């Protein structure tokens, strides 16, 4: 499995570390909404299909990425820098 890093090009998966589902949203840190925290900490959509997930190119440029990968085939549909993707999402929200 190769992940195309926007800085470094396609690199072997063993250069990256996985940081899980990127669709979770953390409640406000001051929030006391137990249900929202429970959902954030424990629950996952766990789709069989395209999955938005964090990877870090820890053995390379060390950039944090958001990768959209099909969990059935490992086909990679999209790779973006996490910061840029998160900022975009923030603007839209």
């Amino acid at each position, binding site marked *: 499995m190769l992940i195309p890093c926007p800085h470094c090009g396609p690199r*072997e998966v063993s250069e990256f570390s996985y940081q*899980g589902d990127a669709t979770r949203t953390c409640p406000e840190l001051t929030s006391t909404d*137990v249900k929202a925290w429970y959902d954030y900490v*424990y*629950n*996952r959509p766990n789709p069989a299909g395209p999955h938005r997930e964090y990877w870090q190119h820890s053995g390379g440029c060390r950039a944090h990425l958001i990768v959209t*990968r099909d*969990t059935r085939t*490992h086909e990679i549909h999209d790779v973006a820098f996490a910061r840029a993707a998160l900022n975009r999402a923030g603007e839209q929200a």
Partner: protein
Amino acid sequence: MVEYSALALLKNAFTGNRDWKQAWRKPEPKPAYDVVVIGGGGHGLATAYYLAKEHGITNVAVIEKGWLGSGNIGRNTTIVRSNYLLPDSIRFYDFSVRLWENLSHELNYNVMFSQRGVLNLAHSPGQADEYIRRGNAMRHEGGDGVWLSRDEIARKVPGVDLSPNARFPVVGGLLQPRAGTARHDAVAWGYARAADRHGVDIVENCEVTGFLREGDIITGVTTTRGEIRAKKIALAVAGNTSRLLQMAGIDRFPIESHVLQAFVSESIKPLVNCVVTFGGGHLYMSQSDKGGLVFGGDLDGYNSYAQRGNLPLVEEVMSEMTAMFPAVARLRLLRSWGGVMDMSMDGSPIITKGPLPGMYLNSGWCYGGFKATPASGFSFAWTIAKGEPHKTNAPFTLSRFERGNVIDEKGQGPTPKLH
């Protein structure tokens, strides 16, 4: 009554092995049952068996999308143990070991349960303390944890690298003598045959594609072979739990699906007489009765529904193997494969009524659901029949995550990687 014997073997050899009685029927699904169990793996089959045997509920179907035993029940490294730290885990898994001890008789089917022992190697004083504490916890609950010194390990498992300048020097090990291995296929076949003999319909090549509901209540399933209604619908689909729950409208759940690989080498003469695990990384290994070394390590590490793994993990597992047993470096691998596992967020299973009315759920088996097969089937059948949990599965609720009552053996916090 014995169904397989030396005489039967001989007789059938003379008639070209054409006259063996089918181990289980191939029935057409009926339109309705008292209970439909989704998933013909070890847990689904065991559940159906105990429903019939313990509770007299025989109007039951097990619905399996592939062939019987095509999931993780036929893909695991067959280790059975109850060497846990927390009382809830020890009680549940020790109950399972006790059921294993009588399983071949119970099913009249040789599941080849072999109590050859599981030895966890410790590689640092800190790890030794942790293992000894776990051994004491087991003994406290009436179990069998035995601490072995390096010399005792040298006598028991001569192949292990015990040299003081090994990369991860061995300081001792925790042995559970009653633990061991079993023949995984035979467990599926034995439960299937025994359930079938009680009248349970085992329906293979029948995929559940959705749920029927009246209001909030789940009243049946749609399948590739038509609609099937039931008073109670029980899910035992391992790595496909989230997929099935999504069909029922539950799109977030404390489980991730990950792939775990396993490996078997060419056959060699007897090398190890117990299961050995390597504490310098994560590796477990035993030798099958045919002589092959059967072993596995960590998850590939990212969400996966592909029933096969990638190469970096293969390399890691092989390097751990040769660190532990340098002599096997030149052995050839025969096969490797992967299975999709239901990784819960605290490393412990969920066996419960719900989450929707009419539904019952068995899931979250992480690395280790094979050893649980008898206890899981027994306690799940109890829960389905009585509408409340058996004392052994009462702690393994779904609500425990929200209540902060997790059963986290490692004390590591929420992650879908625990074993």
